[in-house]
Each structure stands twice: as C-alpha cells, then as structure tokens.
C-alpha cells in the first residue's frame, strides 16, 4: 500500500504524463481556441484562470468522491450534467470561431473590441471588458466537468482513498488534495499549447484566424455531436 505522500506524487506525475499525451489531444483544441480568441493579447492570466477553474472543479469532485468513497455513485449523478457541458463546450467553441473571424456581429464574447454607442451599450461594453478575463475562471470550472478518461481514473484513486479513510471529512480532504495534485500536473502541457497558439508575434494573422475559425467551428460541431451521443 502506498503512503498518502507517495500517492500525491504518483497522481501529480500521472497528471503530468497524461497532460502531455492525452490532454493535449483532447483538451488542447479547447485551449488553442481560447488562445486564438484572445487575438494576440497577453494570454497568461486568462489561461491561468482557466486552469484554476478547471482544477477547482477537479478538487471539488475529488472532495465529493473522497467523502462518499464511491466513484460510480457520483459519476452516475453527474452524467447528464457532463453531457450538457460537452454540448455547451461545443457551442462555445463554435461561437468563438464565428466571432473570431468576424462572422458574428456582436464580436468576440470574450473581450473583443466592438464599440457600441449609447449609455447602456457603453456600460455593457465596460462590464464585458472587466469580465472578459475573469470569465475564464468560471469557464474553466464548467469545462472541468467535461467527461475525460484520465480525470475519471484520478477520481477512482480519490474515491479509493476516501474508502480507506477513517472519516468522511478526512476522505474528503484526501480526495480534494489528490485531485488538486492531478490537476496541477496537467497544467504545464495546456499552458504550452496556449503559448504555441498565441499569435501575438505574427504580423499578418487574418488568414490564420480565418482558417482557425473554420477549424474551431468544425471542432465545436464535433463536441456537440459527441455530447448528444454521450
């Protein structure tokens, strides 16, 4: 039997390993879409917030798994929510793709620079600009619910640790800690993808944005279809 400290380390390295393998393939496109949507603006803080939100959800799920000690019980309860999140993620990506290319008249929902007139519109703009970066945290929290094989695997470890804990509270804390460790392990790979997709250095970005927009719309449709079938 592994000690608690060893489990934390094992699950962190597991997060690191699946991050550079599985997550880049499955979550990388979402992160790349977020990066592209920033249109060259500094993306570190939004991406840190996105990852923070994602890890918060992992931690909360880990806490619940640890407290109940049952993986299947909790996942059965959240299955329909995950289906909705999968569809929602697809819709977000489609909207971002359309907005990025300028095919949506409202501009980007995550802080584009459209200039509405009138007191109400200006107020909304100011509000949306303030919220634009902060939006990435709740977005990360929501997308943290996306169904994902390695996350499930880490949650099994959290539930198992909870099952072996002396009390529900202790199980909950261990589950929380394990999932935070796992989430932290997945951050470097997704930050790398975010950095690579940051086009701030490119002078003529228009064509790239148009191509990326089309890919984002296709990707979004794929997510929606997967969500409906899930």
């Amino acid at each position, binding site marked *: 039997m592994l000690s608690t400290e060893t489990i934390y380390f*094992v*699950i962190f390295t*597991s*997060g690191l*390993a*699946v991050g550079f*393998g*599985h997550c*880049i*393939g*499955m979550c*990388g*496109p979402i992160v*790349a*879409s977020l990066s592209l949507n920033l249109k060259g603006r500094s993306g570190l803080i939004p991406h840190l917030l996105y990852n923070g939100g994602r890890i918060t959800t992992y931690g909360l799920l880990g806490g619940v798994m640890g407290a109940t000690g049952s*993986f*299947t019980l909790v*996942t*059965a309860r959240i*299955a329909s929510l995950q289906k909705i999140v*999968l569809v929602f993620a697809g819709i977000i990506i489609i909207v971002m793709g359309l907005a990025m290319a300028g095919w949506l008249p409202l501009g980007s929902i995550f802080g584009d620079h459209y200039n509405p007139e009138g007191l109400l519109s200006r107020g909304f703009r100011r509000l949306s600009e303030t919220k634009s970066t902060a939006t990435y945290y709740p977005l990360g929290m929501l997308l943290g619910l*996306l*169904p*994902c*094989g*390695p996350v*499930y*695997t*880490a949650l*099994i*470890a959290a539930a198992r640790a909870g099952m072996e804990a002396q009390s529900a509270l202790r199980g909950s804390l261990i589950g929380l800690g394990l999932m935070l460790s*796992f989430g932290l392990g997945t951050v470097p790979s997704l930050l790398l*993808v975010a950095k*690579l*997709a940051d*086009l701030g*250095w*490119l002078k003529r970005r228009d064509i*790239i944005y148009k*191509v*990326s927009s089309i*890919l*984002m719309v*296709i*990707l979004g449709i*794929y997510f929606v279809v*997967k969500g409906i*079938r*899930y």
Partner: protein
Amino acid sequence: MKLVVKATLLMAILCLMTFAICPTASNSEGKPKRVDCDVHAGPCSGSLEDIQITLDVEPKPVKAMKDLTFTVTFVGEKPVTNPYIDLGMPGMNMGRNRVILKPAGDLVYRGEGVIVRCPSGRRTWKAKVTVPDVGAVEFVFDVIY
C-alpha cells in the same frame, strides 16, 4: 529562424485541432484488430511462462463506469506475491488505474475496479495482469458503454 520555428509549431497546433476530430471517427467504427478476448462471453485465458492465467470480469456484460469484480485464477504454481491488474487503453495513457487483488481461494485472486468511459468513443481496453517477479500478461477486450 525563430519565425520559422514558431510557424511550424503553430501549424502543429492547427493540425492538432484537425486531427482531434479525425482519429476517433475511424476508431469508433468496426472492431479493433487487437481484441483477443470476449469478456462478455466468459473468462479469458493467457499464459505466462509455465503458468496458465485466467481472467474473469463480473457482472456481464462488462460495462464501463460500473463497479466490476476481477477474478484471476492460476493453473500451476501459486505466485509468491499477490498479483495485480492495471487497466488501460491500448495506445493511450489513461493514468494509473490499478486493481488490487487479494486471495479468494486456492490459486484464485479477486479485486474490485472500474473501467472508465472514454468520450472519444473508443471501447477497447486492456487488463494487464502482473505477477511480481515473474512477468505480466495482457488481455485486450471491448467493453460496453
């Protein structure tokens, strides 16, 4: 030079976005070739050196995201250390999902575990039964979502 490197990396990202869609479409069609065991029908057998190993998974049909009981039976020598099972997907790192087996009779070991569901639609999983200090044998099978 720096520009070329960055442009190459950018293209890799764009390709990633494209290929994130494609592989799963082909994988979800048809039965993967590597499947060597039908866990829904009954126990699967494999051998490790001179030891015959049988793996059974209950309840049947074997479904993902359900509590499952894994039973490993040996024919021949009894292992010195308890065996264990690592569950994973062929060709994809899904993290460590280990089923701890405990003695449940003469040459029989049993443990609880869960096979998780991959949103990509892939259904092929492998159970790697490891006998410490001896070796490991893999069973590849499809699960039901």
